[in-house]
């Protein structure tokens, strides 16, 4: 294989990985935007989304099969269910803490993360669950580059979800209200905007996107377990920081960049792929030191 074939293959792998990171990073950044919370439970919503998607697929596969049509239906059901779970979590756990010091709500988020993880641990006994699908291994070759249908469907789906989100945020009144709430809540109230409702919508969408990523990741990689949200949560956080936390376009960009960097990182000579997480978090530290506002973030003087 020529060097450029390897290069192209790394780009394809990076895009797939980046699509997952971007979808999860969006929820992180949106929630940070509206309530300035680093929602450390967000990765666990991805995990919950994978399990709900798994359950939904076993329900609908009789009718729609366990190929992409069935997986899409399962994904939509999972997005709906986990979106609602996100809203409930905000109402029950975060809403009462909004006026408390910022550290309190951060600790609450860690607690929510533990609750979700341990609930999944109890229900599954900590075992890996096989996410069985009828997905094939087909695809096509461009020269020496191999693209699987699964990769194409996955990246396309992620792109469609992100374009839909971008349109919602820039073109609709509620999308604009979401951006406005991120800027000045009291002013929004004075304009008649129900800030609590906008926050709820934000949690619904953010959690739904995490569930979409979770279901697709489960189907793509073939197994799920209770701890799968932990690492991707941290990586999505990294992606959001790279893009500029609070910026929606930044999260998409950050996710893709991180996916690509990680894909390249696994091929650095003399460094094995087991170092890729070190690589990722080195990037996080570098961004935080060199450009804390990220690529598209606005500088903001704020104290915890």
């Amino acid at each position, binding site marked *: 294989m020529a060097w450029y074939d390897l290069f192209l293959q790394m780009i394809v792998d990076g895009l797939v990985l980046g699509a997952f990171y971007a979808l999860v990073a969006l929820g992180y950044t949106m929630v940070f935007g509206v309530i300035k919370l680093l929602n450390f439970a967000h990765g666990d919503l991805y995990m919950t989304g994978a399990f709900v998607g798994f359950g939904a697929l076993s329900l609908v596969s009789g009718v729609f099969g366990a190929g992409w049509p069935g997986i899409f239906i399962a994904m939509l059901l999972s997005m709906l269910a986990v979106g609602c779970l996100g809203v409930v979590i905000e109402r029950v756990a975060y809403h009462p803490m909004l006026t408390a010091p910022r550290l309190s709500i951060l600790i609450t988020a860690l607690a929510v993360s533990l609750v979700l993880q341990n609930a999944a641990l109890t229900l599954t006994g900590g075992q890996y669950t096989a996410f069985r699908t009828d997905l094939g291994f087909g695809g096509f070759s461009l020269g020496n580059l191999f693209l699987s249908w699964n990769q194409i469907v996955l990246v396309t789906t992620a792109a469609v979800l992100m374009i839909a989100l971008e349109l919602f945020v820039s073109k609709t009144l509620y999308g604009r209200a979401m951006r406005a709430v991120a800027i000045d809540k009291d*002013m929004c109230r004075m304009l008649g905007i129900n800030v609590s409702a906008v926050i709820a919508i934000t949690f619904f969408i953010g959690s739904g996107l995490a569930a979409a990523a979770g279901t697709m990741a489960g189907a793509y990689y073939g197994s799920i377990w209770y701890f799968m949200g932990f690492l991707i949560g941290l990586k999505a956080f990294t992606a959001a920081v790279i893009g500029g936390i609070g910026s929606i376009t930044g999260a998409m960009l950050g996710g893709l960049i991180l996916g690509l960097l990680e894909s390249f990182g696994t091929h650095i000579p003399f460094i094995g792929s087991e170092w890729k997480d070190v690589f990722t978090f080195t990037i996080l530290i570098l961004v935080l030191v060199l450009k804390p506002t990220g690529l598209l973030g606005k500088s903001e003087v704020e104290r915890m």
Partner: protein
Amino acid sequence: MTPTTTADTTVAPTSSRGEVRLSITDVDAFYGRIQALRGVSLDVCRGEIVTLLGSNGAGKSTTLKTISGLVRTSRGDIQLEGQSIKRLAAHQIARRGVVHVPEGRRILRGLSVRENLELGAFTVRDGALRGRRLAEVYALFPILHERRHQDASLLSGGQQQMLAMGRALMHGPSVMLLDEPSMGLAPKLVTEIMRIIRRLNEAGTTILLVEQNARLALRLAHYAYVIENGAIRLQGEAARLREDASVVKAYLGLAE
């Protein structure tokens, strides 16, 4: 002159000044343990410009925030057209037609001029009506039309004030609460803003205006209240207070 208002009446009460739109009665407000308002009562009648004067920290902005629901009252009542709005959330009060243009304009930075205006009409579900209002606001403030696609934070202070007022007009307010619209503006712009306030009022908007620039406000208003240490000390026809230089001087420390 105080109108008789009871909590259960739904008919707009009247006073010698006309039909009372907004009435606050014996209102207290606290920031933590610090009392900011002490039994404040005032009325704003239909079609009036009422001004609330006072020095820094006297309770002017707090009075407006209490009306718009950003600061909760512990005592007293606030009524809009005879109905209590005291227990409503801020966004519900805005939906009833009370629009607050706060101190410092509070432009939504990062959103375009047009997006700011459209958020002003967030509660207006009728798209055609939103379009008409937008055209009206652009007619009133042509500069906003010119710069509609720009980030609102790039506007000058005077233009931001126009945007804040335009945004409030998009809402179709029945009462507009204006907090220090002249603050930080060059004298020429202040005149321009005051001219626009008068024009809005003539077009039917009822206005409660908070100003530090008392002479200016008294020229514009029909009726005035003077607040000091969180309590109303003086009230009367603006024209009368304007003539009564000694009174104004005593309460506002104006040197002429």
